[in-house]
């Protein structure tokens, strides 16, 4: 059995040689939060972290990922959706259909870890994920909210939440 360290746990799996990490995550390990979008590393829907580096898992053979490497998927970014990027995404209603958003969030989390105060150019360079619904401007706003310390009101969207709060 091959091994992967995913979301802090060592997981055993069986897959044919050459099977991309994406499909091992989705089909062997049941982690379907990571999405298939293009299969050729163009869209970013399959972005995960490998040792903290945002990586398009659809073109990485699972066998090439050492058991010592730390793989983090959207399910492991935080135990309960409490990562600052997830919180900002939630409070600003960033997702539309949501299918690309796991990849967007993983890319944004890696960017903010590397550059806590990214410029627009930094964001453009790091966030090359494709979104067909068109969430780009809210993605940018949410990244800036996180960089600014999490003040969701700074985005100026004025969204009313069910608990009565306003962001």
């Amino acid at each position: 059995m091959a091994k992967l360290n995913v979301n802090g746990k060592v997981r055993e799996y069986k897959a044919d040689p050459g099977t991309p990490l994406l499909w091992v995550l989705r089909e062997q390990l049941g982690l379907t939060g990571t999405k298939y979008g293009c299969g050729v590393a163009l869209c970013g829907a399959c972005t995960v972290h490998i040792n903290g580096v945002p990586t398009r898992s659809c073109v990485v053979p699972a066998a090439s990922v050492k058991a010592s490497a730390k793989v983090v998927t959207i399910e492991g970014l935080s135990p309960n959706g409490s990562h600052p990027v997830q919180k900002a995404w939630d409070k600003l209603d960033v997702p539309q259909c949501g299918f690309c958003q796991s990849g967007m969030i993983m890319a944004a989390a890696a960017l903010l870890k590397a550059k806590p105060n990214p410029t627009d150019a930094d964001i453009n360079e790091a966030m090359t994920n494709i979104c067909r619904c068109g969430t780009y401007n809210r993605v940018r706003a949410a990244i800036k909210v996180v960089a600014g310390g999490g003040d969701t009101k700074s985005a100026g969207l004025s969204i009313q939440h069910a608990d009565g709060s306003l962001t």
Partner: protein
Amino acid sequence: MSATISRRQFLAGSAAAAGSLVIGFHIPFARDAAAQGMPAAPATPEVNAWVVVRPDDTVVIRIARSEMGQGTLTGLAQMVAEELECNWAKVTTEYPTPGQNLARNRVWGNFSTGGSRGIRESQEYVRKGGATARMMLVQAAADEWKVPVAECTAANSVITHTPTSRTTTYGKVAAAASKLTPPTAVTLKDPKDWKLVGKRMARLDTVDKTTGKQIYGMDLKLPGMLNAAIKRCPVFGGTLKSVDEAAVMKRPGVKKVVRVGNDAVAVVADTWWRAKTALDALPIVWDNGPNANASSAAFAEVLKAGLDATDAVVGNKVGDAAAAIAASAKKVEAVYSYPHQNHATMETMNATARWTPERCEVWTPTQNGEAAHAAAAEAAGLPPAQCEVYKLLLGGGFGRRGAVHDWVRQAVAIAKEMPGTPVKLIWSREEDMLHGSYHPVTQCKLTAGLDAQGNVTGFQMRISGQSILAGVAPQAIKDGKDPVVFQGLNPPGPEASLGYAFPALLVDHAMRNPSTPPGFWRGVNLNQNSIYLECFIDELAHAAGQDPLAFRRKLLANSPKHLAVLNAAAEKAGWGTPTAPGVFRGLCVTMGFGSYVAACAEVSVSNDGVLKVHRIVAATDPGYAVNPQQIEAQVEGSFVYGLSAALYGECTVKDGRMEQDNFHTYVPLRMNEMPAVETVIVASGGFWGGVGEPTIAVAAPAVLNAIFAATGKRIRDLPLKNHSLKKA
């Protein structure tokens, strides 16, 4: 009744009660939820078809339309909750199934989610659903207290008997309410009294989209499920000649090679990756059929000939345009064209099907559960009552998942070969690109006359090209006319009307259909019609030596709603005031999907031809604005979709097949190219318009007109990537 009611009992019970609202009859949603791998809800009788209130005061609002990112789930829930007077913090939603809708005499109405119709076409009956449920809940409380119902009020899921200040909650009286006869006289609130509709409410479906928990069709897992990958003959209209099954049957995990219909082959395996790689290794011989030599270049010649053909069908006519133009001081003419485009939803087409000789079930992301149900039943060879479709959240729709359910038919055909085993069919991105239902391809010749003062004397538009209805619903074509072709160009009225008052006008269509299957592509025909009209109007303003805004205002004098959004966009953008150096503005206004929209784009073009869209101000009048923050999200998204199309969107046919098969050749806009978008909502009230689509249509024309202002270049065919904007 308990949640363990059998489906047979449910269907029998519903059939007996067909034709009336079935109050108090529990539908086995819980069972369906469990089948979808979701937590089962406790059994609670519904108050009516739209509303279930659980003993803990949780309110379940049933949503018939499909959520695909556009926010309709939240908007429709707001409409029901507004009239229900319930506690918004305790609202959840669920989809009724198409099978239940059929069994209950379509109690939830139309499931179709396209044409920006989700809210505008169901707003009245969903609000009545909420109001009816509220009246029944209040009645139940009054009955329990033995007081006149007129002495009771409801707010926030609490019912109060005003004279005694006694209170109870919806959850406590829901069971009693469910047994009451629903009232027939229902009065809806005056819009000025709305507390929830019109507010910037957060979406109900966001959290799970940020944690990876949200299950899309592609993510479904059922016990014992197998996976399938498919290839259909890449040439449209071609068929499968032969396939060497034995070549892949010994590969690990491969269970079966299935011929699907006469034009496709699928490999079924334990995992999708194994199915896909086996399919890639499978020797397949296609018969390319009659379209083997089809090409976009050849079809463009057919379209060109259609521009002057005599077999055109009239869509809008005022006076004698040809005579008026002939008698004019100046004549202006131009030919525009618009290419095929793929919807390219981020989640490729997929469906999971389980077939037995008695029953067929399908789990799929669809914009139209009822159409998916009909397609499943047909492919299953079973009566609809023995079939069911469970809708899953869509990873994008944009029209691809509405009219044609080719992937559902395929999934059922595959499952039929493996009775009792659920099979999940997922299209590869390549399959999705090669077998879309494409934006129709058209050309347009525009001719206009100007008098000596620069007034338009006559205006002619000849559209030549593809009809969507001819491809997806030929029965809807009457006397050779596809009315959808004329979106945005119709006579004055509530849908897609032309705002400009031309003294003489002729808009007609010469239908020319290529071998490429067409489909409703977000924005539909309003997209190219707005480019044709709005760029040519800009050409006329230029020919008349007039300001493009002033020129439009004059022609819109009798179209106040068109004019209002145009003015709103122009004023907010600062039309007529100086821009930053090198930045130029362009305008567009149109009407479609029941709403009025306009945009002002600000662009610059560098000396070496690099376009930058800096800012777009967009105005929209959907009548009533149900959730302004989601309207803003839709308007922003519309520019991503519309600008992707304008800059890069093109699918071309060569040797009978599409040339673009992934995102390297079909390039969507990315974040670095996204302009700032400022949305102005001009909700003038009194009508209900759509939001998800109309703004797509103003993206390209506003930018193209700004490009002309910047460079003097008129781009008359898209996408822009095929043109050099380099300064001469």
